[in-house]
């Protein structure tokens, strides 16, 4: 972590509102990717990120080491997204996709079938894999940034992304439409 980032997180933990807002600007897209990876719903992902920042502000005293601050907020987001996901489990997957399609139909109409298949494949992956894929493809974050956000080592991240892509490859391979 760069000294400037370290200082920024330290000030945010100590309650500097302006610096905390800088942290929000810096981290919100990465956190959105994590939430979206878990929930696959843009509105819910935004709500989760908002809630996470409020919770982080209220319980920032729990963080002793500023270097762990990004990973700590990311953990809040993952837990919150997980809670929502658990509550949603009763809704059939098909209904969720129909909902997504109706909301974002104007963007997705042409490729609706492909999106549905890709998201269905993503939904079968473990949550951590989905978060990592979303951070890489949604926000185009490099490995170092993902490692910092999720508190992973380079080896662990490489392993996760390797397994995640391989799993996606196998699932999409059965769907010739997607690969064509």
């Amino acid at each position, binding site marked *: 972590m760069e000294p400037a980032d370290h200082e920024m997180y330290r000030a945010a933990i100590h309650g500097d*509102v302006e610096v905390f807002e800088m942290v929000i600007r810096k981290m919100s897209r990465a956190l959105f990717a994590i939430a979206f990876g878990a929930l696959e719903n*843009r509105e819910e992902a935004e709500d989760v990120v908002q809630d996470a*920042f409020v919770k982080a502000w209220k319980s920032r005293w729990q963080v002793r080491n500023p270097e762990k601050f990004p990973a700590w907020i990311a953990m809040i987001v993952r837990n919150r997204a997980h809670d929502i996901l658990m509550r949603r489990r009763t809704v059939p997957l098909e209904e969720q996709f129909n909902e997504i399609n109706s909301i974002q139909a104007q963007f997705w109409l042409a490729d609706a079938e492909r999106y549905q298949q890709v*998201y269905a494949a993503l939904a079968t992956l473990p949550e951590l894999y989905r978060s990592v894929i979303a951070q890489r493809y949604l926000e185009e974050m490099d490995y170092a940034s993902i490692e910092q956000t999720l508190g992973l080592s380079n080896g662990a991240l490489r392993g996760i992304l390797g397994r995640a892509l391989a799993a996606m490859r196998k699932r999409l391979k059965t769907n010739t439409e997607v690969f064509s």
Partner: protein
Amino acid sequence: MVIIHENINEYLAADLHGELSEAEREELHTHLMECAECRGHYKEGQLTHRVLQTTLESAKPTLGFEQRMVASFRNRVLNKNPRLSGFLVNALRLRLIQAVSVAVVFFALVQMVRVLTGDTALNQSQTPLAFLAAPSSGSSYLTQVQPAGNEPAPRWNE
């Protein structure tokens, strides 16, 4: 080369994401020329990579996302007595205050349990306020205000 073959998924992903070192990249591509199985994985991996890129592209947050996050934070947190909450949060960072808070909560729980169970067996001298009831000499403050001997306490309507 055996290492690359066994960990082909990691190498493929890192290569597609441009995260391999020059030496690793060279090793991987040499292996791909020799191994048809890994070459097949590589081609499928490239397709998967492209499919994910194009699919997740449209899911990016809309314009002004960061500003919405900041505005929501201000509405939900800063408009609610920031000085008091800021003071409380900063106070809670101190170990001493955390320890005192735990002690106070523990003491309150003990007192509550005593009241609920009607525990009177404990000697008065063991209570924290015992010095009020049992001074070293003479009558205490409490015994002065209580009626002496076995006389009944005066009733208000007499």
